[in-house]
């Protein structure tokens, strides 16, 4: 069935509203019936509208009467325990939706950053990248580095980089990344870099903690979503 965008607002167009009412009233009663059939439970639905003097009732007025009485016979505490209020129900839907949006946003950012990272590794610079994106990119780089390091640790111990690695598998692609630095020079560098990874703070150009204070925002604002272009 084609999914049309639902705008949850009162329908001002009289005809649309009337048609919608009839359609949804039918649908609501069908759902009530399915609930009863599947779970073998007592259900009643009573709808008051401006289209009928009498309410639209399912299953029947008699059955609804019985269900209402069954409800009224319950002690008051039982009655009020599970009453749903429209406000609360809408509020929880809003919250759920915000969660979904956040998840989707995160996914989108990840995709963008992966793409950005590939471009950067491919030699294109970081020009025009804003602070937000730089922060996200940094997060992604850190995660990837963790993954790579984890993977290296798991592989069988291999202390010396084999000399023939330049002609190793998939040799062709490697020549076009490397930020313009020839492969062998990089490999030599690697050993010193790897040692630096062990003790990053002094050797590298920056101190991890200081970076955090400078670049990472402290407040996680759940409510304001500024959507990325």
């Amino acid at each position, binding site marked *: 069935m084609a999914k049309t965008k639902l705008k949850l607002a009162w329908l001002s167009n009289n005809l649309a509203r009337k048609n919608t009412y009839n359609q949804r009233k039918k649908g609501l009663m069908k759902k009530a019936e399915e609930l009863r059939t*599947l779970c073998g439970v007592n259900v009643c639905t009573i709808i008051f509208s401006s289209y009928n003097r009498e309410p639209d009732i399912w299953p029947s007025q008699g059955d609804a009467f019985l269900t209402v009485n069954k409800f009224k016979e319950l002690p008051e505490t039982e009655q009020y325990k599970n009453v749903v209020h429209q406000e609360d129900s809408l509020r929880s839907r809003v919250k759920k939706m915000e969660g979904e949006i956040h998840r989707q946003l995160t996914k989108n950012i990840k*995709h963008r950053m992966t793409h950005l990272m590939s471009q950067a590794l491919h030699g294109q610079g970081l020009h025009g990248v804003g602070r937000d994106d730089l922060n996200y990119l940094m997060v992604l780089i850190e995660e990837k580095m963790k993954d790579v390091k984890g993977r290296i640790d798991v592989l069988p111990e291999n202390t010396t980089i084999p000399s023939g690695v330049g002609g190793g598998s998939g040799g062709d692609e490697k020549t076009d990344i490397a930020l313009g630095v020839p492969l062998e020079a990089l490999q030599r560098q690697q050993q010193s870099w790897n040692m630096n990874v062990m003790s990053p703070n002094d050797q590298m150009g920056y101190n991890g903690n200081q970076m955090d204070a400078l670049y990472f925002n402290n407040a996680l604002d759940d409510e304001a979503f500024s959507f990325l272009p």
Partner: protein
Amino acid sequence: MAGKPRSKGRQRVEMKPIEENNARKQVTFSKRKHGLFKKASELCVLCGAQVVIIVFSPANKAYSIGIPDFNMLVDRFLSGAPAPPSLGFAPQIPTVRELAKQLTELMNELEVQEKRAKQLAEISEESEEKYWWEKPIEKLELSELMHLQGLYEELRRKVAERADKLLISEMALAQASMPNIVPLPGLEANPIVRNDNPAPQVFSFRFGEN
């Protein structure tokens, strides 16, 4: 694209009683009750109707919803009184109106993000074939992994460099407009850039993994 195993999707359910008092019955009841109430709420907002629903669970617990007011509607039903002539209009309670509006806006926003996700997914698929470093790391050899580590290090340095540059130029701008304020060494007193996006420090892409 590697993803968690997808479930079969929307299945046609046979309309017959679920045997026994088992978990499926309880779950079905719970989900469908929720859906029923949700639809009732929508009917009220869209068409200005007034709805009351009472449901008993398999364990004989009572669940109910009444819009705008449960007791008022039940009494009206029991007394046989007709619908008042004022019916059929937009929800009177401002909070409900506001929430409904907010919900609609959020739904639109989600749609926008999902569209964007589709575009980005296409780009991702293309680049995964082009660049060797985008291959899943299990497929990389040790030499490639070490190479990659170096590349990441280099990139990290460059990112830090650029961030530094941006920070300095922003501080210079700020100082230019507020010449009397002595800048705090290293740290900004107030972040100049408004950051509404999920904050990177409490942020992890792992949760976004499909």
